[in-house]
């Protein structure tokens, strides 16, 4: 379901990047995503912390 099913040449949909199967694998690979989960939490906390004075 992830790959381009229809490519209308020269349409807007023709140009954007599409993730490769490897990229899609990492997006779903649970051990890797657990690490990303920690990192994303940390990044959000940093933004929240400097949100207001």
């Amino acid at each position, binding site marked *: *379901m992830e*790959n381009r099913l229809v490519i209308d040449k020269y349409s807007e949909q023709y140009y954007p990047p599409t993730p490769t199967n490897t990229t899609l694998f*990492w997006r*779903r690979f649970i051990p890797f995503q657990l690490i990303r989960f920690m990192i994303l939490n940390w990044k959000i*906390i*940093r933004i929240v912390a400097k949100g207001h004075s």
Partner: protein
Amino acid sequence: MARIVVLGAGVAGHTAASYLQRYLTKEHQVTVISPSSIYQWIPSNIWVGVGRMTADEIKFDLKPLYKKWGVEFLQAKAQRFYPEGDAEINSGYVEVSFTTPDRSGQTQKVPYDFLINATGPKLNFEATEGLHPGEGNIASVCTFSHATEAWELFKEKLEKMQNGQKQTFVIGTGHPTATCQGAAFEYILNVDFEIKRRGLQDLAEVVWITNEYELGDFGMGGAFIKKGGFISNTKLFAESYFVERNIKWIKRAGVKKIDAQKIYYENLDGEYLEQAYDFAMLIPGFAGHGFQAFDKQGTDISAKLFAPNGLMKVDADYTPRPFEEWSVADWPQTYQNPSYPNIFAPGIAFAPPHSISKPMTNKNGTAIYATAPRTGMPSGVMGKVTAENIVNWIKTGNPEIKHKASMGKMGAACIVSAGYGMSKGTAATMTVSPVVPDWDKFPEWGRDINTTMGEPGLAGHWLKWLMHYMFLYKAKGKPFWWMIPE
């Protein structure tokens, strides 16, 4: 004793009321006035709209909580503001009309020493001809009841596809200057996910229609993000998401009318076009609630309190300027009304000085662009900061405003769900810092490139799922709720 009246019990209003009751002693009176006693966690509406959650999972009744906290609750809606009082009442007051069946039509004057107007937006469906959610094939996910209806309609369409009928799903913005593209973006991705989960993709055409100049604008002029060795932008990010899923898109479109079969729109080239649909979920325009305000003599001073769009004037710089001269300094920091310093308007209730995205008008004179979003995270911060400033004023007697929260300084995180599931789900974690680009501080990219990001993956779904439970826990005032940041 001080009387603090909070209008509205959404993210900004409820957050403000929560901190007011926490920081103030019982001698002070906090009153919350809202047409509904239900608190809803709006970001999860999209999961209700695809049947992954029920409305009961994203809402709760505020009355028992406010009773426990000693906060007075009036189920009513504000009608008129009297910031100077009148001949009988020597302080500011608001006139409210009750919305419960037993008191329907009754009005009451509610005096205050401090007023927090956190009434959010009016969902201006009537600004687009034929945009009536719940009627025909038109849905909305703006409220939990709309989202429940959206799921019923979506279910009907899924059944039609299971019976071999092709269906066209059109999701996006339903007004030329609508905002909140993020919610529609999440909904289209979830609708697409659910269609594919059932193996029905060959019978579905999924179309995104938006007033954005480019995809990924999201009403904040887009954002630059660091990814894969490039500084890219949210345009590519959003387009890639759609191409990956074979979702088509129509951009620069101002929807003007919708009937039972077609959506009628103008584009920035001034063309009048149509899009057929079987299921439409279009975000309406937002407006103020049409409040009126009067001075002590009864003279109408609505223009002093409210901008022409009906939202409340605050400490923003409303001087009209061309886009090239806009600055983060135009954006408010305290949400305090300049004429009446004891009135504050956090959340969507405040009138922004201008949009963030560049305003665009076509040759027919139709403005087509995304207006400024104010998502849950900034609204919560504004609500908290407003409460802190009022508490400080009450405790010290000094009206100096110590706490500030400008959208030109604070960041925001938006977890864009693209499919529900603890192992198969996905979401894009998007953060921007600050929300309003600061081209003086960050001349290259407008924002801090190290904290502005967009990352798709399963971890994003876990984050959104966690935030659902975490923020409902906080809103319910459970033990140590105040340790959870806005």
